[in-house]
């Protein structure tokens, strides 16, 4: 029979063993690191303040020296829940509008995988949150769960509109001030012109309020120009 060269035979096996062993260790470490990293990803949304308020209203601790927890009026709790739903609406809108953009950007390689992971987690959290709000609402008032998000949506839209209006209104004082100043300057110009009617003013700018100005050399540069002195 053949004499088996055990020593010689062990070498290739050792080689394969070392190779596979190192691959396994590497993949182990790699997975662990990735898992740890994804666990530490920052949350998509900041802490949910409205939810915290609602929950702390529900679970008030008794004040010192008293045994009974202070009774919170039902209306306050309901208002807190509605506020919470409004905030949820904001977040849902954000998630909905970002989802498509995020996935196309991820495919193109313009944003990273981390972001997508965070996004998916936020989406899942929001689903849970919505379900929780519906059950809470149903617990407070029967069948309120079906309508709470409708009202929350109205509130959210209304707030947005009001904010925009306020922004526009906020510009009014400065606008007003400028126009006052402008009126004063035009008035003084007119007074000057009346005082000296003989000297024709060479100012070309005063007459072009809201006029399409064709520039002199015919470049066709068209510009709506207001209030040029």
């Amino acid at each position: 029979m053949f004499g088996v060269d055990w020593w010689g035979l062990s070498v290739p096996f050792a080689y394969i063993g070392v190779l596979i062993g190192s691959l396994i260790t590497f993949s182990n470490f790699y997975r662990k690191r990735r898992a740890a990293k994804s666990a530490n990803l920052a949350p998509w949304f900041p802490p949910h303040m409205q939810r915290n308020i609602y929950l702390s209203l529900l679970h008030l601790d008794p004040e010192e020296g008293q045994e009974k927890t202070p009774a919170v009026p039902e209306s306050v709790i309901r208002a807190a829940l509605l506020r919470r739903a409004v905030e949820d609406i904001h977040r849902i809108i954000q998630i909905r509008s970002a989802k498509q953009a995020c996935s196309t950007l991820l495919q193109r390689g313009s944003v990273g995988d981390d972001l997508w992971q965070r996004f998916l987690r936020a989406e899942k959290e929001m689903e849970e949150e919505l379900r929780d709000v519906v059950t809470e609402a149903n617990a407070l008032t029967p069948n309120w769960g079906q309508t709470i998000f409708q009202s929350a949506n109205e509130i959210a839209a209304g707030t947005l509109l009001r904010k925009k209006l306020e922004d526009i209104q906020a510009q009014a004082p400065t606008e007003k001030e400028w126009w006052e100043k402008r009126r004063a300057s035009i008035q003084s110009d007119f007074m000057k012109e009346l005082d000296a009617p003989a000297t024709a003013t060479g100012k070309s700018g005063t007459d072009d309020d809201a006029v399409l100005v064709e520039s002199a050399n015919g470049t066709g540069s068209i510009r709506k120009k207001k209030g040029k002195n």
Partner: protein
Amino acid sequence: MSGTDYSYDEQGQFFPVFIATVVGLVTIPLTYSVLKPSSDPGATAPRIKTDYRPEHADLIDIQRKAQKKKERKLKRIITVIAGWATMAFMAYLIYVTARTVPKLWNPYDILGISDSATEKEIKSHYKRMSLKFHPDKVRPDASKNQTIESLNDYFVELTKAYKALTDEEIRNNYIQFGHPDGKQSFSIGIALPKFIVTDGNGKYVILVYAALLGVLLPYLVGSWWYGTQRMSKEKVLIESANNLFREYEEGIQEGGIVSALSTGLEFQKALKGDKAESGLGKLESRILAEGVSSPLAGGLSVKDRTVLEDLDGGAQRKALGLLWAYFGRVELDDPALNQAKFEVAPIAHALNTSFTAIALAFGTTAPILSSYLTCQNLLQALPPGASPLLQLPSITPAIAKAIEGDSRTHLSLQYYMGLPEAYRKKLSVGKGLLTEVEYQTAMSVAKQLPRLQVEKAFFKVTGEKFIIPSSLVSLVVKGRFIPPGSQNVPEVNELDLEDVDPDEDDLDAILGRKKKAVKGEKAPEEDKIVQPPLAFAPYFARDYSPRWHVFLTDSKQGKIAVPPFTFTTFDKPIYDESGKPTFNMQTLKAQFQAPPQAGHYTFVMHLICDSYVGFDTKMEVTLIVDEPSKAEEIEAEDDISEPDEDRRAPPAKKKKKQAEESSDEESNTEEEADDTSDTNTDTDEE
């Protein structure tokens, strides 16, 4: 057959060849990449001529030089030189080592006759040779280094050669195996020097092998993989891109974008350690001081100010402060701070590119426009909403304000330059304003700026009269480069405004291989690509070639309808040799698919130059999509002479016909769905 007869390369005649080949495989492609003409626009593009030097031009120049050095690929050059040196050395080794090429056994050579000799000649020649060289006849001549044996051998060779040519059997042997004695033993050579396998060296060889395969290879693969993972497609750190995505808001404006850009991790790298905090107080007091034309010197709004002040200290806050200082061109009285001020702008520009990509993915018009405006602001060092006049040299916010007077809107450069010369000069030159020399410099720069003025924009389908649903439509924008303040601009030539289709047989043009607008008369255009001059951006510490973006938006929904097409080069010269504008009609074409429904679609076309403020064009264009039946009527009247016409027609034309007739109101988003009906409709039409 002696299969185990390996011979190592003892004389070292193959080893250098092997090494030279392997090194050459790496070196030659690398050499190409080093020597190939640089794609950097700064190398070839013309510049706007001016001798204006902004304040701190030295600092900006230092950074431009540093950037050039970085782009020079020093490592690659060294590798290439080392590679060529190795190859040269190996070539020298090959040349020096004596070659022991096994000679082919050739009977004619041995006999010393020509290959074409007849059998008779061979015989007579052999007879003569055998008489002369028979060992019995010749005496060994010691001076010629001959012995009895060598003479004997030579005679045997002669005989063999003769037999190989005359004897049938031996001749067969020769033909089959190349030798009259039959098959020769052969040896396998390994192109490795022997010292690699000699005893004692084996372990080192294994060590090297293990290092190569176990360490170097994983390292290279790993660094490549993580390198690609680290950077986004827009060449910014992926984490910065993630941050920018988080900062995106529907209603974000230029100021908000600047704040968002400061979240980039690149700034943390640029402002490491001590740099992250030093001078922050001074910087902020400077940019938040009262400004000339804006409430704050940095040009930031009250909202941006609160954003800045809400940030924790550190690199981000400093980066944002520096950015505002850059925008406001605020003097910081500190070389290090001033240096950092110019350093942040190119970083922010790169980040802004990423932000633009994100905004485009969301598709809302306002943020996209804002991000393009931010790009302009970054290049020109202008805060959002500042006067475009500040782009001209020597004009400070105070001067711009004096020129504009008490106006609420800003003067655009082209309006300012269009004012009568004397009036413009009266506005700009004087005490506290520009000096005469400064004014002339500013004017000369302004008259060189490439402003693309759109003369006409229309839609067409190549080779068709009508645009039918789902066809491939080209948006053709015809425009001329008219620098602000140009005199004697010629009238638009109506012929130039037409977009003539390429000839039927001109496949290159049809397939759009070359962007070539074929004109009615002067068909053989030189198809040289013309680069516009580098952006005149004296404060931006990089050379930048301006880009023009054309895109369509839907004004009712506030969404983008056709994503931007970017143009960096043009097909006709913009300036002649002496630097005067040529006013050539340039053609920009963007192709997209028409909507699947017939009707009138009104889009807003934006043409944005990303390097200059106030040169943007915004105009309404209407895309008229006709029912496919209309196009067919015309075609029938035209009596179709060329069968090619159909094949080149928009792909969905035929197949759409039936679908349209049956379900007109149905919104079918998948135009390609009914591909199969193409063939049969094609035939029964004619």
